């Protein structure tokens, strides 16, 4: 609608990448220079799996642009005291003053050395959700690259709000930083706590909707009936944190109650370590000369090296082996003499024998018959033996998948879940095959845009892995980052993403408490940059976190509005945001979640409207900082190398490099990126500049669907998946233990227990009770589980201050308070809308009761992350948050450094009711 006839109406193509489930296409309708509407970009209908559409969050971007609470000029703090009760006294200053202040501070820091006396970087930076801020920060990554070492370990929820263990183990086992079902053809999906209909983005929503119409079955296993549960054929309300037991029982049914030939025997035999012989010491039996693991050749009745040509090894069985060796931690070689060698597969069968559905039923509060039925349905739907043809190549068709959500996939029990999930795929050959369980991207390995190229041959017939060293000579005893990721977490490696995936809560915890006196003294960063992140809300134990943040000496926040973290900042820099600045992003190929396309390419984010107030394009800010720091050449060199993302400016057949000695405008920089990326993508056939992109928005080239599946690549390279037996992890864990104990560090011993060759069930939920006891609390005082769940309206959107999101989210249950089972509420005398207190042993959070049947009686659920106290608009919502009352706890941190987003709590009715609530 339009009240007066406009002079000009334009539709500006751009992208939304507010969460990792994007990027997705959209257009901005601009009427006489004012952005009025977000609309899909139907020009992308045929290349984008979601047909050019964006999710509800993007529709808030108009309000985001014109929000009266925006910070529209650089501000400096005038109150030197920092704290929740200290008004920061921000006053506007010029960009010159702001940039010069930062440059002087950084120069002084640099003069003292980029690494401080404790061996960690003096400059720290924290960015929000899953790398998405990078797609809004222009060329700032080039500035960071020009600077040198930076500590990214002050997390804002990484490891506790993501599918952390999947990132690490997924990438280890099948180059799957995120794991998805191949929804385009799946017929049966077991979804444990995954919430793709909320957090999977338009591509996942579209595909799962298509799958429902096709008649696939999805079983949602989760303590509450989430949006995804609502859209599933079946809901299994499992007891919190007992998912490993459930999955072990599924494996049990398939391995013990079915014949071996119902499984995908060729896949197990040829693509996995199942035939590797394991000796009595639990290590592979290896050829004494070559150290290669042995397999049993039934034709000749001898053990041979795994890569012996022409051998069809025994999958199961126990065989006499003589003259073999085993290699333990720290390269301890042992002559094994005459021993029995058991195939890894037989070890698995033996191991899983004790985990029957009847055993799991009591733990999971799920009937054994249900577990057994689901396992049988899964096996049948796997259609072992079926094939499909993709681009002329015949591949197995295994239309079954198991997907895991946050809190199943992080913290204790997550290793077991990840292993069991991957094994469920392995048993039927569904791992990385059409229809099956597939990885979509890599982040700990390179290159990020092609996981197939990250597959290199390593030892023992497996992929090469880039673990942090645990051997005596190379173990990083002295941490290089404040969360000790290289020291404590071998599997996380040490590439650009590794630090932020290390145990990010440790960086915060160690500021308060040093676990070991002989570790270097914890230091604060001299300068801390923050952007699109609000750890004071989005991490745990936020009241304590705020106090820590207040101690940081110099914090520079790129700030949209005031929030609970930048309340402690020294400088606020307002950047031109989503609809006001220019940047390019890779689209398609295979990326996070269900972003695997039949095309790959690039898309432009461009100013649809003039930047509001005195906000500036992030690339301009970055260039200015580099220039004022005297790092211009290094900065431009980094851009030329491709540090701004998308593409290097110089390639085999093109050169659009920038003059490194000059300051370039954002338009000049991104024009070069436009040209370089199109030339590179088209292999020299086409070159498009910024002007072309401003009109067309994106450029793609077709991509074969074969790139979705890793198994053909593994087969081509003659490699095996490192499953089911985790000999490497066992050895690495032992080595890590040796190193830590050599340094008298015993506080990580519990985490070392996770390094098992075949994961055992242990009382995972009991860990939360034990933690209560250790904290001096009584278990019976905290009888309920509190879980956090994602909401599409808010997930990763940084949009709690957007009125539209508040309004539309109220249509969906749970966005007004705490979801409580109606019978539980009745027991506590709580009615709909009553104000309730949810209290853990460290604090309390408050909100309105939302009564439901679709939640376990022993479980409460809070959506999103709220409880704001500084951010305009958001601070008036009076919404509760799990983060306020979840402790950061070493004993609840698993070996990967992650924690589960769950807390044991008590519930109490408060006086009074929420205004406007009807009974």
């Amino acid at each position, binding site marked *: 609608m339009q009240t007066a006839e406009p002079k000009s109406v334009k539709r500006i193509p751009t992208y939304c990448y507010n969460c990792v489930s994007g990027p997705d296409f959209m257009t901005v309708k601009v009427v006489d220079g004012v952005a*009025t509407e977000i609309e899909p970009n139907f020009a992308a209908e045929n290349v984008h799996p979601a047909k050019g559409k964006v999710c509800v969050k993007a529709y808030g971007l108009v309000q985001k642009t014109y929000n009266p609470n925006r910070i529209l000029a650089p501000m400096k703090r005038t109150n030197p005291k920092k704290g929740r009760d200290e008004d920061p006294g921000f006053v506007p200053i010029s960009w010159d003053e702001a940039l010069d202040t930062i440059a002087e501070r950084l120069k002084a820091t640099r003069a003292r050395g980029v690494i401080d006396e404790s061996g960690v970087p003096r400059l720290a930076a924290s960015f929000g959700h899953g790398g998405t801020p990078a797609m809004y920060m222009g060329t700032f990554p080039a500035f960071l690259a020009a600077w040198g070492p930076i500590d990214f370990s002050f997390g804002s929820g990484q490891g506790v709000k993501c599918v952390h263990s999947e990132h690490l183990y997924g990438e280890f086992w099948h180059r799957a930083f995120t794991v998805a079902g191949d929804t385009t053809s799946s017929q049966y999906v077991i979804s444990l706590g995954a919430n793709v209909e909320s957090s999977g983005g338009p591509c996942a929503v579209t595909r799962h909707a298509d799958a429902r119409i096709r008649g696939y079955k999805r079983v949602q296993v989760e303590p509450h009936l989430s*949006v995804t549960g609502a859209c599933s054929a079946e809901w299994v309300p499992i007891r919190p944190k007992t998912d490993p037991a459930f999955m072990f029982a599924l494996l049990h049914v398939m391995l013990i109650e079915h014949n071996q030939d119902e499984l995908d025997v060729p896949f197990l035999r040829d693509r996995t370590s199942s035939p590797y012989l394991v000796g009595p010491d639990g290590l592979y039996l290896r050829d004494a000369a070559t150290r290669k693991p042995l397999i049993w050749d039934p034709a000749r009745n001898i053990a041979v090296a795994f890569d012996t040509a022409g051998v069809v090894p025994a999958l199961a069985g126990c065989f006499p082996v003589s003259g073999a060796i085993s290699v333990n931690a720290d390269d301890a070689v042992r002559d094994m003499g005459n021993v029995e060698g058991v195939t890894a597969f037989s070890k698995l069968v033996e191991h899983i024998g004790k985990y029957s559905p009847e055993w799991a039923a009591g733990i999971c509060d799920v009937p054994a018959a249900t577990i057994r039925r689901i396992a049988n349905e899964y096996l049948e739907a796997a259609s072992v033996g079926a094939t499909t043809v993709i681009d002329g190549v015949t591949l197995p068709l295994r239309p079954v998948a198991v997907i895991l959500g946050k809190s199943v996939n992080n913290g204790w029990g997550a290793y077991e879940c990840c292993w069991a999930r991957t094994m469920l795929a392995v048993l039927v050959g569904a791992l990385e095959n059409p229809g099956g369980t597939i990885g979509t991207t890599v982040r700990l390995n390179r290159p990020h845009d092609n996981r197939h190229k990250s597959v290199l041959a390593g030892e023992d017939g497996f992929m090469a892995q880039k673990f942090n060293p645990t051997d005596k000579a190379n173990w990083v005893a002295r941490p290089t980052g404040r969360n000790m990721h290289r020291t404590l977490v071998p599997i996380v490696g040490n590439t650009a993403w590794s630090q932020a995936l290390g145990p990010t809560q440790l960086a915060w915890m160690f500021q308060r408490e040093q676990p070991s006196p002989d570790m270097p003294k914890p230091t604060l960063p001299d300068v801390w940059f923050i952007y699109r992140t609000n750890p004071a809300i989005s991490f745990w134990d936020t009241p304590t976190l705020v106090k820590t943040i207040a101690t940081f000496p110099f914090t520079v926040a790129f700030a949209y509005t005031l929030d609970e973290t930048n309340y402690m900042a020294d400088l606020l820099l307002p950047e031109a945001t989503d609809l006001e600045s220019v940047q390019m992003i890779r689209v398609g190929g295979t990326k996070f979640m269900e972003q695997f396309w039949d095309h790959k390419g690039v898309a432009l984010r461009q100013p649809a409207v003039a930047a509001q107030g005195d906000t500036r394009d992030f690339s301009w800010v970055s260039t200015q900082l580099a220039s004022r720091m005297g790092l211009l050449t290094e900065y431009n060199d980094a851009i030329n190398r491709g540090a701004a993302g998308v593409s290097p400016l110089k390639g085999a057949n093109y050169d659009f490099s920038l003059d490194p000695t000059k300051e370039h405008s954002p338009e000049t920089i991104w024009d070069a990126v436009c040209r370089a990326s199109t030339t590179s993508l088209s292999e020299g056939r086409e070159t498009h500049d910024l002007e072309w992109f401003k009109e067309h928005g994106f450029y793609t080239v077709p991509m074969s669907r074969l790139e979705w599946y890793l198994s053909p690549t593994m087969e081509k390279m003659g490699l095996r998946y490192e499953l089911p037996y985790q000999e490497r992890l066992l050895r690495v864990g032992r080595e890590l233990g040796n190193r830590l104990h050599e340094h008298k560090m015993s506080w990580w011993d519990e985490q070392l227990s996770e390094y098992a060759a075949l994961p055992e069930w242990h009382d995972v939920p009991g860990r939360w009770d034990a933690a209560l006891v250790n904290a001096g609390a009584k278990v019976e005082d905290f009888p309920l589980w509190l879980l956090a769940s994602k909401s599409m309206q808010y997930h990763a959107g940084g949009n709690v201050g957007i009125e539209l999101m508040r*309004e*539309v989210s109220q249509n969906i249950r749970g966005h007004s308070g705490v979801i409580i089972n109606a019978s539980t509420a009745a027991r506590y005398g709580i009615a709909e809308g009553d104000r309730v207190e949810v209290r853990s042993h460290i604090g309390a959070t408050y909100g309105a009761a939302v009564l439901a*049947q679709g939640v376990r009686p022993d479980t409460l659920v809070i959506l999103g992350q709220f409880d704001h106290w500084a951010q305009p608009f958001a601070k008036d919502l009076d919404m509760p948050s799990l983060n306020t009352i979840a402790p950061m706890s070493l004993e609840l941190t698993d070996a990967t450094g992650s924690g589960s987003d769950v807390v044991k709590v008590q519930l109490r009715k408060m006086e009074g009711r929420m205004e406007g609530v009807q009974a």
Partner: protein
Amino acid sequence: MTRYVTTIDLRRCVGCQTCTAACKGANATPPGIQWRRVLDIETGEFPDVRRTFLPMACMHCANPPCEEVCPTKATTKRADGLVAIDYDLCIGCANCVMACPYDARSIVHAAHFSYGDKPLPSEAMRFDPARVAVSMKCTFCVDRIDEAAVTGRIPGVHPEVTPACVNSCISGAMEFGDIEDPESNVSRLLAGTQHFRMHEELGTEPGVYYLWDQS
């Protein structure tokens, strides 16, 4: 004859409110006023529970009770099936609001904006005083349908002339088109599915079809 209808596939809908937000953007409705919304309905008792997401808006009835009661002829039923409101005739008596069994209509008696009394630029530009204190509801994005008549494009096929909610839907739950045309997308979809219309027993002959299973 033409009758434009919407089909909503309940099997697909995920309750995301993208259509709700898109509608608010397309029609510049004030805060709290939703010409369409997706309801979240829980049925059953633990553990046998279902949640269903139900998009609701004006049903553009063939026999609209709102039109019957309207004393001013502000509400009319068009030849193409759309139920329209002439804001300049409406006296805001709310009789139509009471007559509608779908809770599709609303009246706002004073201007208000997302962040208080002062409109955002995007709100100021599109603030329409004619819509204050009169009855409002989903129009099926009537401007676009009217544009189709001029440009020859086909509503439901070409996005420029298709309602914003239908365009925005990320689960593909909604289709729009002419039910009188047996070849239209909606006719074909209805032929292959089981569906119902809400409150049909009231004789309203609604123009929104809810799909729930294959036929």
